[in-house]
Structure formats: C-alpha cells, structure tokens
C-alpha cells in the first residue's frame, strides 16, 4: 500500500518534471492564463532572449484590469491603459496565444472566463500573473498566482521551479443560515487565522458545508485563499464539478470526457491522509461578515463591534489597528451597522457571477438605491452580462438606480477609472480593503452581494436579515 496522500500531494506528484539536487522541483503547468497588466515585461523578456511561447495551446489571454467598463461606444480615455491593452493584443497575436481582447463578445475577468469556457479542469496546475488565481482551485486544480518573471518562465518552458507547500485543511461543517453566503465563510476564515495565517500553505476546503456549495460559490471561497496568505486553496472535485464542466468548450468530449472523469475521481484525498495544519469553522454559527479595517483579516460578524486597540498586547498589532481605524475614520467599540456609505460595488473575480448578480437583484427588486449612493454592478464576463440581461436582472438594477456596466475588474483594483474619491466609504463584494485599493483615500468594507445590496438600499451598512 502506498502512503495515503492529499489531493494537493497527488496533483504535485503528477506534475513533477525534474527533481535535481540543489534546485527546487520543476513542475509542469497545464494552463497558463495571461492578462494585460502582469505580462508585457514577460513578453519583452522573450523577445530579448529570442524565445517563443512553448505551448500557446495551453495558454489563454483576456483583457480585464485596465479596460474601461463604460459603454463600448465611448473611447478609452486613458491613453496609458489603451497602450497596455493594445500591446497585450499585439503580444498574444505575435506569439500565437488565443485571447479575448477589449470588446470581444467573450471577454471577461481572467478568473471568470477560465471556468466559464471549461479551460479550468480538475487535477490541473493553473497559473496566472494574478494572486486571485486561487479561484480555479474550486475545480480541484492546484492554481496559484505568480510574478512576471515566472510568467516569462512559463511562457518559455511551460514549467516553474517550485517549493512544495505545506497542506492545510480548512473544514467547514454544518449548514449556512439564510442571509449567510460563501463570501462569509471565507471572510470568517481570514478573520480567524489572519492574513498571514496560511503563508507557505495550500488550503484544502473540506466538510459538509463546502460539499453543498455550487461551483460559483466554491470559486468565491477559493478566490480569497490568498487573503489568508495561502497561495492556493482547492476543493476536491465531485459530481457538482463534473456537471458544471460537461459540455463546456474546452472540456473533453465523448470518450475523452469519460476517461477524464475516471481520472478526476481518483483525485480526492485518500482516507488516512494527514495535513500539516488544520482549522475548523462551524457553518451553523456563521453570520454575515464584514471588514472594518485595512486588510481582509480585519473582519467581524456584521452584528459585531469594532475592536479596541487597547485590547491588543502586541505593540505592532496595536499600532496597525490604530492606523487602520484612523484611515477608516472609525471609532473603536462602535457597531459598523448604520455607518453611512457613498458607494456600493458588486463585481470582481470574487463575486461577479450569475448567482452573485441574482443575490444582489433579489434584494434590489422593488426597492431603490438610497439617495446619494452610487451603486455599480459589474458582471464578470460578457457572457454573464448577456445571461443576466436575458433574465432581466439588468432591469432590476437599473430600475433601482444602479449603474449596469461592461465586464472587467473595475473598482476592485481601480485601474480603469472606476474608483472611490478620497474619504468615500464603499461596501464592496471584492477581495481587498487595503488603503487606496479602490481609489486613493477610499475606504472599503468587504462583504457579500446580499450585504452590499442591502446597504445600497438603506445607504448605510446593513444586515440583510434586518430588511423587512
């Protein structure tokens, strides 16, 4: 009998190309996703060295970070962004990489389009020059973000030098209560173990609450693994995974599909396999979560009170909280519900899929965005945009007074002109509340689409369960 292994170890073992003394392991990459922001210097590096892309057939590109989400009838106002977008499309064309450019009918956020087209599959190694690549772990893939040097390595060789990560089981058992969503699971985990809690590790999310999540919800959970410091987070594939994938463009077909499913069924962690670390979360006890500070670990249940720096013993931790509360202009000991907000953002690779838009629309239907509040709803892809319009969700948003946009990263990263003004507060379904993340001087509360929509309606941070 071979030693029982976790799914993380199985995928690692299947992708080992070389293990030479004195060097990290060389692993093969099954899918490399590229976008306009972190790739230009890598393509320049290829040109300087006279190298080609080794496997353009295993590489896929899209435009998402810098592209405007305003109407396609308007020009790109930012010439620097326009240059970057044009350079990306030129690079992909020159090196033979399939891609969705600006205004393409299938363009979208890189972590949305991979699963949407069946590019992301169980057992794969997936990389992208973007820390939220962990999203693809929802399919039982080992998926992680890389820097631009590594983008160049993978373009040139389809391989990466990697140190093996530790394994970390995140077990979530129980049943989520109404008003509590996948976003709240991951925000609760980050609040519990801290933003460095998963450093050096890959999470495997297990337990009955995880099993009962849809693929879209699983993507939301895996997406924010990096916000707890883990490079990757994954969920073993099951019938939910296979059902989602079957028939998608790049999924295997016919006998290849049957053979692939048989291989994928061997991936889940063996009984008796052990993890280096573990933590448990009780889904029954979860409330909607919200952040109050300037990193995703500064989160609490929405009914909670902002912590008091005086209760922290470590001086650096105390100073960090003081600095965060100064930046946020919030008072220790107070609740966050009732805090007025200026902007509500529904979108990003965390929460821009159909189920997220449906959740937000379910709250907004028959209601209005509060006077003075700007609400932006940004679908994750052009395909999602059209599907939402076919369901009439765009009408719900527009009738409520929200702005319905083209697909992209938008106000999650504020590179494309969609941003907060200094001092503004937002409730955002994105993944980062760092200082200035949504615009210089902007203040972000991270929460679920339900909480975001409820807050848009009242103009204040609101527990969705309190809406009558």
């Amino acid at each position, binding site marked *: 009998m071979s030693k029982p292994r976790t799914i993380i170890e199985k995928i690692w073992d299947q992708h080992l190309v070389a293990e030479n003394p*004195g060097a990290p392991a*060389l692993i093969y990459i099954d899918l490399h996703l590229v976008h306009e922001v*972190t790739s230009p210097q890598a393509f320049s590096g290829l040109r300087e060295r006279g190298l080609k892309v080794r496997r353009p057939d295993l590489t896929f590109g899209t435009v998402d970070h810098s592209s405007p989400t305003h109407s396609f009838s308007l020009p790109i106002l930012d010439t620097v962004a326009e240059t970057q977008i044009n350079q990306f499309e030129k690079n992909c064309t020159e090196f033979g990489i399939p891609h969705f450019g600006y205004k393409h009918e299938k363009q979208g956020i890189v972590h949305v389009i991979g699963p949407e087209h069946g590019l992301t599959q169980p057992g794969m190694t997936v990389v992208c020059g973007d820390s939220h690549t962990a999203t693809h772990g929802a399919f039982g893939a080992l998926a992680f973000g890389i820097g631009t040097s590594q983008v160049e390595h993978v373009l040139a060789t389809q391989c990466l030098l990697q140190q093996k990560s530790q394994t970390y089981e995140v077990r979530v058992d129980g049943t989520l209560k109404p008003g509590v969503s996948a976003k709240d699971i991951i925000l609760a985990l980050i609040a519990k173990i801290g*933003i460095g809690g998963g450093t050096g590790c890959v999470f495997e999310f297990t337990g009955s609450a995880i099993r009962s999540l849809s693929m879209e919800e699983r993507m939301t959970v895996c997406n924010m693994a990096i916000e707890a410091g883990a490079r990757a987070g994954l969920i073993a594939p099951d019938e939910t995974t296979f059902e989602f994938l079957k028939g998608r463009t790049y999924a295997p077909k016919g006998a290849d599909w049957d053979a692939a499913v048989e291989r994928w069924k061997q991936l889940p962690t063996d009984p008796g396999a052990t993890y280096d670390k573990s933590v448990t979360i009780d889904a029954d006890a979860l409330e909607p979560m919200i952040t109050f500070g300037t990193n995703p670990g500064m989160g609490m249940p929405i009914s909670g009170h902002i912590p008091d720096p005086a209760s922290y013993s470590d001086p650096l931790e105390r100073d960090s909280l003081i600095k965060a509360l100064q930046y946020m202009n919030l008072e220790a000991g107070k609740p966050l519900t009732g805090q007025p907000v200026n902007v509500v953002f529904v979108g990003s690779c965390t929460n821009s899929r159909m189920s997220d838009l449906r959740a937000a629309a379910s709250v907004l239907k028959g209601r209005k965005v509060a006077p003075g509040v700007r609400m932006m709803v940004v679908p994750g892809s052009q395909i999602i945009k059209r599907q939402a319009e076919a369901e009439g969700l765009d009408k719900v948003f527009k009738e409520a007074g929200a702005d319905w946009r083209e697909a992209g990263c938008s106000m999650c990263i504020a590179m494309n002109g969609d941003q907060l003004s200094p001092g503004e507060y937002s409730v955002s379904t994105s993944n980062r509340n760092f200082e200035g993340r949504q615009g210089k001087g902007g203040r972000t509360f991270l929460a679920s689409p339900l909480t975001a929509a409820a807050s848009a309606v009242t103009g204040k941070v609101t527990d969705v369960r309190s809406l009558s």
Partner: protein
Amino acid sequence: MAKFTTLESKFVSMGIDNIDTDQIIPARFLKTISKAGLGDQLFYDWRYEADGSPKADFILNQEASKSKAVLLAGDNFGCGSSREHAPWALTQYGFRAVISTSFADIFKGNSLKNGLLPIVVPKDIQDWLFANPDSTVKIDLASQTLTIADGRSVTFPVDPFMKHCLLEGVDELGYILQQGPAIEAFEAKRVGSLNTLA
C-alpha cells in the same frame, strides 16, 4: 540580475505589520508596459501629497534614507497582489534587502528574482533594530548571516538554489531552459484534458 554577496548599510524603519503591495506600489501605476520609472512611485500614496509634492515627514523623503539599502518592516511584509512591480520599485529606489519577521510567499519569490534579499529574523532581533534605528547591519549571503550593531549574528533561511543565483547574478530561466530534455520526456507521457481542438 544584480549579484548579491555582502552588504553593510543603515536601514529605513517602517514599523507597520502587513504592508501590502498596494501600498508598496499602487495599482494605478501598473498600466506601464516597461519596468522603468517605478522607483519614484514606491509607496506613492504614503509618500506624496495630493498635489504630488513629497510629504516631508515620510521616511523615504528624508535625505538620510536615500543612501540606505535596507528596509526594516513589520510582520508579513509584501502581502496581497502578486505584482512584481513591488520589488522592481524597491530595488529602483535603492533597496537590496528587506528585514522582517515574515514575508508573503509571492513577494518573497518575486524579490529573490530581482536581487532583493528578504531576510527573516526572530522577533527579538526585529525589536532591537526598531529600538536602534540609526545602527548599521551587515549581511553576508554566503554564510546567510545578519550581524547587528550589538555584535549579535543570526542566520537567515535562503533557498540554496536562489542563493546560488544571487551570488552569481544569474536568473532561473537559464537553468529551466537547460531542462529541455526532461520537459520533452514529461510532455511525451502527459495526458492532457484540454480540448484544444475547440
């Protein structure tokens, strides 16, 4: 990549935990298609007023900081985004090493590829350095030691392969390209599931 062997320098202190890469270089500066000019944008939103004038009280704007090649930071430095623009900006400003009690994984990897040495030290060493901000540190990569001004030396971990690359000033890609036969052998037996006929 620039070689790294030894370094003796005073350091810039930033006593804040969890300094994320959005602070090191804000996302709006990532629209560039080159690596040039990022040093001036390092810590931009902490460093400049709304009108673009330098904030006199921010440490990187102080004359004495400009000759310092080491940054001392709080725990979990470099968390957040995978942007390699962060180590590009730090090295262009003039930093060759960052000292902290821990680093985020992607930042650490990106730094090592750009001649910027992340040095993990125990909390007591970090505390002593914060308490003695005008002291000098000595770094010797070959022996993996950091020596502080009270005479104490601590060893710090570095991946042996990256240590070799830093000492020699070579990057990883040359080595990976040499593995061509192993990559071909792997591809010959690899069972891919991507329907690339699509």
